[in-house]
């Protein structure tokens, strides 16, 4: 059985609204990427939120979906930004 790690998804805007909380710890097999975490997250979201383009950040920096996650990472999938 694969070794598992825990990362924390930080949720904003519509993602937060549907997940129901700001922080969502998830378990993933060691070696998982941000893209794998995103698949987990999207499976928990309704269709119209799943369809949003999202940018990825890991540990407070923009990242690619191919980034390999480490235990304890803070991972964010960001719906379209709305500042200003």
């Amino acid at each position, binding site marked *: 059985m694969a070794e598992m790690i825990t990362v924390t998804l930080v949720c904003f*805007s519509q993602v*937060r609204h549907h997940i129901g909380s700001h922080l969502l710890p998830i378990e993933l097999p060691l070696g998982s990427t941000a893209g794998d975490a995103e698949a987990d997250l999207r499976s928990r979201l309704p269709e119209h939120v799943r369809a949003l383009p999202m940018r990825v*950040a890991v540990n*407070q920096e923009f990242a690619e979906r191919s980034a390999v996650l480490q235990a304890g990472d803070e991972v964010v999938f960001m719906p379209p*930004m709305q*500042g*200003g």
Partner: protein
Amino acid sequence: MTAATDPRVDTRITEDPLPPLEPDDSRVKLGAELLFHGRVRDEEEGRPIVALEYERYEGLAEKELERVALDTVERFPIDQLVCWHRIGRVGVGEASLRVVVWSCHRVEGLEAMAWFISSLKHRVPIWKWAVTADGERFPSTCGHDENGPEGDHGTHAH
């Protein structure tokens, strides 16, 4: 808040109301001072609201806001750029965003202002929730698309 590392930019994200503008006649080389206030409008997605609540991804929002400011002073011949973005609850009519650009001449100031605000809206991880008179709080469903300024339909606060 983030301390600017370049004297040309001063970017802040703050929960406090934006302070009144102080008159400042000290910039004797810079003929053009351009200021933008983004204010909260009284409706969101067609529904009347009493406030917007801005949330940010703390850490990245501050870094990215400063990077957008630095990109702007690199890209346009302007001398100084100040941007304060208010977060938390901002009442209708109040300013959520203040941007000030100083330059020798107005044309570059106007161009820099347009580019900066558009970039901020697309790059800085800040989102808003609408608050209605009966206390309902819903996330704005309408963000800016990823195509850059030309794709910015701008149907929101400003």
